[in-house]
Structure formats: structure tokens, C-alpha cells
């Protein structure tokens, strides 16, 4: 046998058909495809048969039918009598995005504060932060939402006896009634001033970095930028003669009048989501800061950097590189977990669409898949953006390390293609 192989060394050895990896892989994959095609086909054919038997319409035509149910929070115009299911979908989607947006901001701030507090040398503070993290992340989010909603906000006093925070608004079991800003003439210029400020701040920071690279001189770009972003709108606001009045809520019998109503469902969901997720973000932040080698801090100190510079220029940039990827998935978790609102009837995507609309139309397949397909792009886009940012912040690696070994072998073998020395 061995001799035989030696004689025919230049021919491929004869192997059984199934021991040939290419054949085996191809066979396995063909089988897999066949099984999946069969499953999908039988599921679809069963579905059509079942739908026909139950007399349920299919297709997306129902999106143009009037919905006929009320939604208690809509960012866009919504009318119970005329608005369609398509409109309901938009209302729900916007409400999801609203709670996710504020949830992300609050959770990030709270999470960073608690994460840094866990590393504090002050024993009391680090203990308190640890207790916060351990308690909040070991209790199901749904239960926390229930506690905030049924256990706190619904137990608040009636509107008549509710809390009055004076200029800050009213709080009672119908929600939080905030003063509503009423913009006068020319208010859009303030918005444009804000946009101009942001662009100018970016330009200044680029210029400052370029100048620092060339000359070594440091320009206070951060404070200038802050001044531009907030100062410009304020200046325009004052120049226009402060075109802003506040519509104050007035305590009434059934519910307060005027002002801006923030429904208790939104508050409960927002508070529960952000405090719960903050516990996870705190752990991520803590791990990220701990992962920065102590030698880095010492080296920076040896260079003569002051304490806040060490933190800002050395520790934070390196920690952020570790923090950002898991932080992204927490942001996505907030967005996806906002669907738990269905349990307290906050009118977001899952609750108004997969809940009420499904009950009314019975089109389970379409209505089951639309929310799913709406969350998917949110998830995929967020991860794409964060991956891009992450790549920008990641450590630069040497070219050779990334090179495919076989390509490298070819290149080294080719005398024409030697790197210059």
C-alpha cells in the first residue's frame, strides 16, 4: 500500500466517494437546501390552505382601511375616525423611536455615572453602585415596568390632589403635565442657528486638530464648539426678542388643561428601560476602564500630563474602544425591549400593531411579520453605524498581519514583488 502510494505520488490518492471533502460538503449542503426548501414550501402551502379555510384575507390591502381605534399618544396627526392602519403603524413606529431615543440618552448617562462610581475609591459610593447594578439586572425588566407603572405611577393621587411643581408642571396619576413651549414668529431661525453652530463647531475642531498637528499649539476647541452650538441659538433667540411663551398646565377636575401631556405609560417605560439598561452599561463601562493597562496611566503621568488630561487623552480613548461594541448592543436592547410596552399599553409598534390591529383584522402573517421586519433594519443599521465608528476607533494593525498566509507565500516567492528596503 505504502509502496503503491509512493509509486503514484503525483496522482491524487484514490479515496471513497464520501471521504472526498468536496463531495461530502456538496452533498451535505444540497441535502440542507432540500430540507429547508421542503419546510418553507410545506409551511407556505399549509398557510394558504389554512387561511382559505378560515376565510381570512391576505395581502397588505388592510393598511389602507380605517382603523377606528384611539391611540393615546401620537407624534403625528392621528384621527380615530379617518386614519388608516398604515397611519397606526407610523404612529407606533415613531413612539418606539421616541422612547428608544430618550432611553438611550438617559441609560448612557446613568450607566457611565454608575460604572465610574463602581470604581470609586470611596467605599460607600462603590458599594451603593454595586448594589444598584446587582439588584436592577437580576430582576426581569417586565416586572420593573410593572412596578413603575402599576406600583408607582398608577398609585399617584388623582389630578385634583396631584403634585404641583409650580413652573415645572403637574404630576398625578394621569401623567406628567409639563409646560409647553409656544414659539413665536421667526423661531425657525433659532433652529437654523443651532445647525450652523454644529457645523461651525465641527469645522473649528478640525482646524484646531490640524493646527495642533502642525504647530503643536493647543486651541480650546471643545469650549469653542460648545459656545458655538449653544451660544449661536441663544444669541439669535435674544436678537429676535425672545419669541417664546410657555403654555402652563392648569390643574382641573378630570384632567389638567393645557400644557404638554406626558402619559404615565411613557414615563414608566422610559424610567424602567433606562434604569435597567444603565445597570448593564455600568458593567460595560467598568470593564472598559479596568481593561486599560495601569502602565498607560503611569506612562502618561511620567510624561507630565495632568490628571484630567490623563483621563481625557489616555484612559478614555482606550476604554471607549472596548466599551463601544457592547454599548451598541445595549442600545439595540433598549430599542427591542421597548416592545415590552405592550404589557402596559404604551402605544408603540408592537402594542398598537401586533396587538389591537391584529385583533381587528386577524391577518396574523402580515401583522406578525411587519413589526419584526421593522425592528430588523433598526438593528442592522445601528450595528452598521456602530461598526463603522468602532473600526475608526480600533487599533491600527500592521498590513502584514492581516495578509492571507498563502498570498504572502506567493508574494515572497515572486522576486519582482519584494517590498522596498
Amino acid at each position, binding site marked *: 500500500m505504502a509502496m503503491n502510494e509512493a509509486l503514484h505520488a503525483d496522482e491524487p490518492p484514490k479515496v471513497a466517494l464520501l471521504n472526498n471533502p468536496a463531495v461530502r460538503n456538496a452533498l451535505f*449542503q444540497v441535502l440542507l437546501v432540500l430540507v429547508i426548501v421542503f419546510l418553507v414550501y410545506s409551511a407556505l402551502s399549509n398557510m394558504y390552505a389554512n387561511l382559505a379555510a378560515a376565510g381570512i384575507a391576505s395581502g397588505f390591502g388592510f393598511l389602507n382601511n380605517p382603523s377606528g381605534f384611539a391611540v393615546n399618544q401620537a407624534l403625528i396627526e392621528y384621527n380615530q375616525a379617518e386614519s388608516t392602519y398604515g397611519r397606526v403603524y407610523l404612529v407606533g413606529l415613531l413612539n418606539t423611536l421616541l422612547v428608544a431615543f430618550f432611553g438611550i440618552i438617559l441609560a448612557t448617562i446613568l450607566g457611565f455615572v454608575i460604572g465610574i462610581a463602581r470604581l470609586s475609591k470611596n467605599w460607600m459610593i462603590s458599594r451603593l453602585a454595586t448594589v444598584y447594578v446587582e439588584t436592577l439586572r*437580576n430582576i426581569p*425588566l417586565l416586572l420593573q415596568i410593572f412596578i413603575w407603572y402599576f406600583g408607582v405611577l398608577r398609585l399617584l393621587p388623582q389630578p385634583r390632589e396631584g403634585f404641583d411643581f409650580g413652573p415645572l408642571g403637574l404630576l398625578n396619576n394621569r401623567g406628567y403635565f409639563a409646560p409647553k413651549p409656544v414659539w413665536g414668529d421667526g423661531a425657525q431661525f433659532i433652529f437654523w442657528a443651532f445647525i450652523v453652530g454644529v457645523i461651525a463647531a465641527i469645522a473649528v475642531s478640525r482646524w484646531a486638530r490640524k493646527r495642533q498637528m502642525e504647530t503643536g499649539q493647543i486651541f480650546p476647541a471643545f469650549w469653542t464648539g460648545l459656545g458655538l452650538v449653544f451660544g449661536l441659538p441663544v444669541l439669535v433667540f435674544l436678537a429676535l426678542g425672545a419669541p417664546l411663551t410657555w403654555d402652563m398646565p392648569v390643574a382641573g377636575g378630570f384632567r389638567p388643561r393645557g400644557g404638554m401631556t406626558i402619559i404615565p405609560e411613557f414615563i414608566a417605560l422610559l424610567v424602567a428601560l433606562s434604569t435597567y439598561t444603565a445597570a448593564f452599561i455600568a458593567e460595560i463601562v467598568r470593564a472598559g476602564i479596568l481593561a486599560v493597562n495601569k502602565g498607560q496611566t503611569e506612562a502618561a503621568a511620567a510624561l507630565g500630563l495632568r490628571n484630567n488630561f490623563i483621563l481625557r487623552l489616555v484612559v478614555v480613548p482606550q476604554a471607549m474602544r472596548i466599551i463601544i461594541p457592547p454599548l451598541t448592543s445595549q442600545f439595540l436592547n433598549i430599542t427591542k425591549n421597548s416592545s415590552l410596552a405592550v404589557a402596559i399599553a404604551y402605544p408603540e409598534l408592537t402594542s398598537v400593531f401586533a396587538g389591537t390591529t391584529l385583533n381587528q383584522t386577524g391577518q396574523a*402573517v402580515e401583522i406578525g411579520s411587519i413589526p419584526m421586519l421593522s425592528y*430588523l433594519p433598526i438593528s442592522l443599521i445601528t450595528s452598521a453605524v456602530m461598526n463603522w465608528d468602532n473600526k475608526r476607533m480600533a487599533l491600527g494593525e500592521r498590513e502584514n498581519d492581516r495578509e492571507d498566509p498563502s498570498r504572502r507565500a506567493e508574494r515572497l516567492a515572486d522576486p519582482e514583488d519584494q517590498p522596498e528596503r
Partner: protein
Amino acid sequence: MRENLFSSIPYTILTLLVLYVLWTIVPPILNFAFFDAVWSGSDRNACANAEQGGLQPQGWFGGCWAYVGAYFNQFIYGRFPVDEQWRVNIVGILFFGSLIPLLIPKAPFKRENIAFLLGIFPIAALILLTGGHFRFEGFLPGTGFIFAPGASKFWADYIIASLIILALVAMIARGSDRDPGPGMRSTAIVLGVIAVALFVLTIDFGLNHITTDRWGGLLVTMVIAVTGITASLPLGIALALGRRSSMPIVKLFSVIFIEFWRGVPLITVLFMSSVMLPLFLPEGVTFDKLLRALIGVALFSAAYMAEVVRGGLQALPKGQYEAASALGLNWGQSMRMIILPQALKMVIPGIVNTFIGLFKDTTLVLIIGLFDFLGQIQSSFTDPTWATPVTSLSGYFFAAAVYFVFCYAMSRYSMFMERRLDTGHKR
């Protein structure tokens, strides 16, 4: 102490601030849970103040543990008939009795224990909880001419299917130049064991049949969590291996599967499994509501598990894969003996975190109308016998305490195992 708390003026201020926060938070919680709580009583009068028509003084605010006590049985068993609850107790004793020795590293008989937990326990639990005495009608199409649907057709179908599988095994062995004997023998043993298990399920033990809509409380929570965990780990490992596979189609399907489940919220998955899944099944085939939720939970957590396992597979140095091939191990052997033991060990914290997440996520089934532990508590609030302003808070407090104990225990155990298994490879 002084250095830690009062070393500088900002620190002193912070310390005092923390003390103030503790002072405003801790005493009310302790008062609610212990000092002002009501421990006994027969109805809402015990937990309502005078204004609400109860016995408590004006302004009283405390936990109503009398209500939790009155409902305790329902919180654990749901609507499981009281006379039959011993069956649930036996399942609980069997489960914890075999799980705890497994978790203690020094306890002996690990192999036997695992075999019991994965082999005998599920069948025993299924029979005890549902009542057993299952009726199988047969599953192969086109064999109706032998027997009418029923037990005989089922066993005839089973024998035919077994013969087909054995023939396939023999063909694969022939095709890869191996002696078909050992492969066929082990397949025959597996098929035989499955036949015995199925036969046991059909035996009438004289237990009353209890449908799953009577299950509830902690029982349902544990059933979903344990089944989900057991199903998601092997499925997750398979998906992770699929995602790292060199076969493009396998990889593509794994990536799509994983990214799809990870991109959607569990609630939509549960909605889908409860309203869409029945539509995908042939007419006449119905799935139990609990089973549908189980399928959704298992698929969902399998995707998360797959990503955790993939992390372990990627963290393993390439040399381990190459060394395994150099030893002449085939793919299955190298995975089983070299790669997976190391990779899984590395990601134990991640796996346990997924378990904890799954345990917490079981609460979501209450949204599709199953009565798990939280669902049972939530539904008890509507009972006018105990309806007081503090009922809901007492119920939530109790629920939070129970969930906390379970999740905290799991996370502590994972930290313990992580330290124990740490063989110093970490940088």
C-alpha cells in the same frame, strides 16, 4: 475607613450624600417589607386602612404578606389541581435533587447524574406533569393500508422508519469505505432507546390527565426556563459551528438564522409563535399554547447562545485547530475532544448570562396569555377579596425577591465556576 470615606472635602460631601440617599431609601423599604407589614389575615380588611374600610390606622403603608400567603399555592402551581400537586413536588425534588450534586464539583457520579437528568428525568417529568398515557397515531404517509391510525400503525411506522435510517447509515458507511457494523449497531441502540422511551410514554399509570392550561406560576416559569436552556445550548453550538463552517450555504443559513432572531424582540417572536405558527402547520395538527411559546423561546435564545459560543471558538488560538488536524482527528472528533471543551469553558460566563437572560425573559409569556410566576401574581390582583392599594406592590415585591434569588444565585455560581476552571490561560 477615614482614608476611604473622608480623605478630602469632595469625598466627604459624596459620602454624606450617599448616607442621605440611603437614609431616604432603606428605612421605607425595611418598614414596608418588615416593620409595617401584615403577616396574617383572611381578607382585604387586614391590609386596608380605616378610610378604605380596613383595620389598619390612617396613613398605614406596608407589605401585605397575608395576601401572598393566601395565594402562595397558586403562585407556585397555578391552577394545578390541589390533589395532584404531589406530582409537581416529585418533579421538583427529582430536578433539584439531581441538579445540585451536578453543580457541586466534588460530588461523585457525574456521568450517571447527567444521564439521569437528560435521559430519565425529562420522561418522568413529562409523565408526572401531564399524566402520561400518550396516544400516538403514526406519522408516515402512505402506510395506512397496513393499519388504521392508532398504536399499531405508529409502531409499524416506527419500525419502517428505523429500517430506513439503518439503511442510510449503512450506505454512508459503504460510501466512505468503512465497516458498516459499528455505525449500524450504535444507531440501532439509539433507536431502541427512543422506542423504549416512547413506549413508556404510552403506558397508562393511572394518573389523571392535566392539560397545560391548568399549569401556572413558578411551575410554568421553571418548565419554560429549563426546556429553553436545554434546547438552546445544543442548538446554539450547532449554529455557531455552522457560522464558522467553510461550507458557504451552511454558513449563509446560520448567519441569516442568527441575525434574524437577534434582530427582533422576543415579544414579536412569541406573538409569531402563538398566532402564526398554527397557520404553518397542516390542518388538524395543533400545538399546545405552552409548547408554541417553548419553541419561540428556544429558537430565540439559541441565536444568542450561538453568538456566545462563536466568541469562544474565535478566541481559541488557531494552533489548537491545526494541532487537532495534525493528530489525525476528523472534524467531529476534533470539535468534540479538543475545540469545544476549551471554547465552551472560556465562555461559561456568557453562557450563564444567556441563561439568566432567558430566565428573566420567561416573564414575557404572560403577554401571550400564559400564566407564569409573574403572570399568576399579576392576575391575582383582580381578586376583590384582597384588593387594596398595597396588594400590587406586595405582589411585585415578592416576585422581585424570588427572581432576584434565582438570577443572583446563577450569576454567583458562574463566577465560582469561572475561578475554578481558570487554568491560567488568560492574559
